[in-house]
């Protein structure tokens, strides 16, 4: 059989069946179907297969309870989500956070009671100091941190002292 334009091409049969041809091509293929029994029989076979499949799908769809199925799927999803977050939530809120707070409090209290006493502030803080003196020293006793002001009086005070 002479091939006309790409005739007896299986792909053309599928495209024709899927209505995937432009009008010109569609008309040409219809003319070919009029003269080619092989392509006509293949097209008919394709149509029968498609109808049988559609009938089977409809039959099964009518039997299925989509509502129950949807409910089952959603329930499964919720169950997984709940179980996933629950143990982590419990672990975080009821164990990690209180444990962290307890450790922080212990550290702070220990610091306050054990470290702070080691640091003893001076007994006196000097805001200002003026006078007639030759020199002044500010000291601190090593143990009790008592502040000491040592003043070397001006020599004129000593002269007056002798006269007294």
């Amino acid at each position, binding site marked *: 059989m002479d091939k006309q334009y790409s005739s007896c091409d299986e792909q053309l049969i599928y495209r024709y069946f899927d209505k995937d041809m432009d009008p010109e091509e569609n008309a040409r293929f219809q003319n070919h179907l009029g003269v080619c029994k092989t392509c006509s029989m293949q097209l008919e076979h394709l149509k029968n297969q498609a109808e049988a499949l559609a009938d089977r799908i409809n039959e099964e769809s009518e039997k299925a309870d989509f509502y129950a199925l949807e409910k089952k799927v959603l329930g499964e999803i919720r169950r997984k989500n709940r179980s996933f977050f629950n143990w982590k939530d419990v672990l975080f809120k009821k164990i990690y956070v209180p444990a962290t707070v307890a450790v922080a409090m212990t550290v702070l209290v220990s610091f306050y009671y054990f470290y702070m006493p080691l640091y003893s502030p001076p007994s006196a803080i*000097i*805001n200002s100091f003026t006078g007639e*003196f030759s020199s002044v020293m500010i000291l601190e006793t090593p143990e009790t941190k*008592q502040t000491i002001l040592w*003043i070397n*009086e001006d020599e004129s005070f000593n002269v007056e002292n002798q006269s*007294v």
Partner: protein
Amino acid sequence: MLRINPCRAAFVFLVLTAIALAPCTRAWARPAINIGVETILASQKDRFVDPKLLPLKNELNSVFRYTSYRLINSRQLQLNIGRKGTVQLPGGRVLTIVPKNIKGKRATLSLMMHKKKRNIFNTEIRLRNHSAIIVGGPKYKNGNLIFRISNSF
């Protein structure tokens, strides 16, 4: 529904307020500060430590090289905030103490030492409660005078 008696509620409120403000009354009142001034003569001429100074001996020895500590005088003053107190010291010196305020654990004191009309020193200190400051240096007889100024409030 719970009924609240207004009179009782007001009374409870007043009591709670009084309890809450009780610690503040000290601040509002003019509290008195107990101030002690001990005058000590320190020298290297002999070896002697006044029995009353034994608790201070280690502290003094940790800083000074004196071998003798004699307690010449000890005065106790009770001064309100803003009131002036004076202590006569050896060598014609006078120590004037004025408590300025109390903040937390420290009292602010103004200390002035003068001789006749001359000001030896004038200082303002913040002294911790139940502690002391040691002021020393003025020459007297064969040693130096040390003044231990303590407070409590």
